């Protein structure tokens, strides 16, 4: 293991724990980051010669702590008149190293490190960017590429977000049970955001954004190792695995999106599906259902179906109705309507989505589904109106192309009068 790429993956594995401990020790994000950075440089020099340490995180924490203390001392010397309390603070810091670096805190350390990124004042994209930078150690350049913005713009965004975090102040005491579970919920939501940022993507962007999905899965697994008995964290991890398992089948050779029904299921990652299904089984035994578990259970039913026809839509309908009660949202109802259409027919599904028209008036998928249902009911003209609206709202060329295919079929079947199609 002298190869640099293996060393860097060992460092990134140790990063959340080491950064979390250094943050607790120095109580300042910038100092912790610099200390960690310095420890990494020493690791790159030391590990190839002496072999990797048995516990890379402990090594990085120890070396990082020393280098951070040196840096704080130097800064104190450069200051013309060091404040008395600053010096005594430092000595105090050294005296309780043992307490503050206690490895038993690592669970709360990592949770805290993730939690400071979820500050409610930060917009979701900034939360994600900061988490990827601080917790995952992904370079600003890579993050900028994933978000399709310039490197300096991303650098600025992260700097501003970090300043905000520093202003907000972080609680360093060991959290109580209620606070811990609140932190965990906020962090889980952020991990899901990271995944979605990578998942809801245009075809051309998929390669740049796929690493976000992988990083989200890595963070979810990390959370699950820290909180092994939390069914919602099992659900979250399962959900991400089951969705990402389909990644190899989601785009065709031209980079166009392939819908679930049309995907080549032999391309799905069996390994990820197995792990996801195992986690769903484990979570359900707890009988403490939550939104992530329900969504994972829905994804599991898709994963278990060898062909689209084998899908258990009745069960999916039930699960969506459960999700509607837990997390009422027009989008959840819309998703449920897809299952209802399969189980009880297009008429029932249409009746279900009609009341959503106002709230989803700007939502591509609403009009796509509405048009599809109307088409099944042989109401071609109305279907055409819905499809036209869908095309106008399409987020990607692939979405628009998919709807145009339906319109073409309508015209072929003579369901609508041909009209001159507007250029898009």
């Amino acid at each position, binding site marked *: 293991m002298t190869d640099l790429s*293996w060393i860097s993956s*060992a460092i*990134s*594995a140790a990063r959340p724990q080491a950064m979390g401990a250094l943050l607790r020790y120095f109580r300042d994000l910038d100092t912790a980051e610099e200390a960690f950075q310095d420890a990494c440089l020493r690791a790159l020099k030391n590990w190839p010669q002496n072999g990797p340490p*048995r516990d890379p995180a402990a090594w990085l924490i120890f070396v990082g702590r020393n280098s951070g203390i040196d840096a704080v001392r130097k800064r104190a010397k450069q200051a013309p008149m060091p404040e008395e309390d600053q010096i005594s603070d430092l000595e105090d810091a050294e005296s309780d190293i043992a307490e503050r670096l206690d490895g038993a805190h690592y669970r709360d350390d990592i949770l805290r490190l993730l939690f400071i990124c979820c500050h409610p004042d930060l917009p979701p994209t900034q939360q994600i960017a900061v988490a990827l930078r601080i917790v995952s150690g992904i370079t600003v350049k890579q993050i900028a590429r994933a978000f399709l913005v310039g490197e300096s713009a991303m650098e600025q965004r992260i700097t501003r977000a970090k300043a905000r975090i520093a202003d907000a102040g972080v609680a360093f005491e060991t959290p109580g049970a209620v606070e811990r579970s609140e932190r965990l919920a906020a962090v889980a939501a952020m991990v899901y955001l990271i995944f979605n940022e990578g998942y809801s993507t245009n075809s051309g962007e998929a390669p740049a954004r796929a690493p976000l999905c*992988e990083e989200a899965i890595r963070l979810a697994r990390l959370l699950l190792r820290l909180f*092994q008995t939390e069914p919602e964290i099992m659900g979250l*991890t399962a959900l991400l695995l089951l969705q990402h398992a389909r990644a190899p089948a989601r785009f065709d050779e031209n980079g166009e999106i392939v819908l679930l029904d049309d995907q080549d299921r032999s391309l799905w990652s069996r390994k990820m599906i197995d792990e996801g299904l195992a986690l769903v089984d*484990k979570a359900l*035994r707890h009988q403490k259902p939550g939104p992530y578990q329900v969504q994972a259970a829905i994804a599991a039913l898709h994963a278990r179906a060898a062909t689209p026809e084998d899908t258990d839509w009745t069960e999916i309908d039930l699960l969506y109705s459960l999700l509607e009660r837990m997390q009422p949202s027009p989008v959840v109802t819309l998703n449920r309507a897809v299952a209802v259409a399969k189980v009880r027919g297009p008429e029932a599904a249409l009746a279900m989505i009609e009341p959503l028209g106002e709230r989803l008036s700007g939502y591509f998928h609403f009009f796509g589904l509405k048009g599809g249902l109307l088409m099944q009911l042989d109401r071609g003209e109305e279907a055409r109106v819905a499809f036209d609206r869908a095309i106008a709202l399409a987020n990607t060329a692939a979405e628009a192309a998919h709807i145009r295919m339906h319109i073409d079929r309508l015209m072929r079947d003579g369901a609508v009068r041909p009209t001159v199609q507007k250029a898009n």
Partner: protein
Amino acid sequence: MLYAILCYASEDVVSSWSKAQDDEVMAKLLNVQEKYAKAGRLGPVARLLPTTAATTLRRVKGEAVVIDGPFAETKEQFLGFYTLECADLDEAVDFARELSEVNPSGGSYEIRPVSVFDPTRVLK
């Protein structure tokens, strides 16, 4: 004597490998197994899903209790195993050494003689 070669390593480390890195390790490990398989000495081999997917059953006061994960909190986790027919311990150690040479996880291989082995039941 049949030996079980048990692979222990840190899941944190192994799950941080990129897919390309993981594939590379698996290909090299498979390569090591090849000649033992050809000689008819290699028995079943398994790589296990992460311990987060594991469940443990134990009896507490006479009652079976199912809990999440493996029981012990340890730095290294049990990730998989090989079974190998060996004339002596040296041969088993050689096999484990070859595996360790291509495995950058920094983990260990526990070499355990097998007491009961039933190869008659084959999965379909």
